[in-house]
């Protein structure tokens, strides 16, 4: 029995420690995914709550065909998307052309940026602002691949999309962030 199966078995016995362990492992990840989709802390808390409630309700029938983490991500992502649709019904989640490759325009070399500016709160706020402008469907992929460091396949399983879509969205998201930061740093450095 794997450690994960043991945890699931313990949760079936309504073991509080098993709940605490699973919550410790996954709550921040689920929160970040929800936040990446919704950009709203309160709504993200709601996703965490709903996701774990679903786990508690369905633990007796949880089949363990997918890994627990993948299953939780899936529930959380669908929950976040349905909240997003009711918060912003006009938002088009497929509103990006998947074939259109963005061409890098700002070619300023900001490798020389001093460490203290690179790691500054201002630069971090700029990263956050730039990511925020991306379509939520791109943000979810970007987060799972480049922050949580899941593989392409794991990300595809977690979000219920194809590996090809993961790759295209990641590529677009990375180039968009690069472009935004190139603009920011070149202005900041007066280049």
């Amino acid at each position, binding site marked *: 029995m794997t450690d994960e199966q043991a945890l699931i078995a313990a949760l079936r016995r*309504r073991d*509080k420690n098993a*709940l*605490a362990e699973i*919550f410790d492992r996954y*709550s*921040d990840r689920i*929160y*970040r995914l929800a*936040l*990446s989709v919704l950009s709203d*802390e309160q709504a993200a*808390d709601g996703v*965490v*709550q709903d996701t*774990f*409630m679903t786990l*508690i309700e369905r633990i007796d029938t949880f089949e363990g065909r997918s890994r627990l983490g993948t299953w939780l991500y899936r529930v959380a992502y669908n929950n976040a998307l349905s909240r997003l649709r009711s918060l912003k019904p006009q938002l088009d989640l497929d509103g990006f052309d998947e074939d259109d*490759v963005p*061409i*890098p325009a700002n*070619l*300023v*070399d*900001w*490798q020389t940026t001093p460490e203290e500016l*690179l*790691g500054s709160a201002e*630069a*971090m706020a700029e*990263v*956050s602002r730039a*990511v925020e402008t991306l379509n939520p469907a791109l943000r979810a992929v*970007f*987060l799972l691949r*480049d*922050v949580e*460091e899941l593989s*392409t396949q794991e990300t595809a399983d977690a979000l219920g999309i194809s590996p090809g879509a993961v*790759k295209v969205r*990641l*590529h677009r998201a*990375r*180039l968009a*962030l*690069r472009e935004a*930061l*190139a603009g920011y740093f070149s202005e900041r450095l007066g280049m």
Partner: protein
Amino acid sequence: MDCETLITYLSDYIDNNLDEDLAAEAEEHLRTCHNCRVVLDSTQQAILLYRTQGKQRIPMQRRSRLFRQLEEALAGQDCE
């Protein structure tokens, strides 16, 4: 390989997902093309910055409240 092709493969190159021949062509292009080198370096830098910025956690107070509610739900199921 030209610049446009290099950019198309940039993410795969960063993730080491190109087959040997393509990777070699990309390397060759990057050795000679300053612009693409800049795009590669700055994209990698952007990813690192996002990795640092993106690791938020649920603030402690809200986290405790969330967990308490779940604990109650779990205990509540017991009595059914």
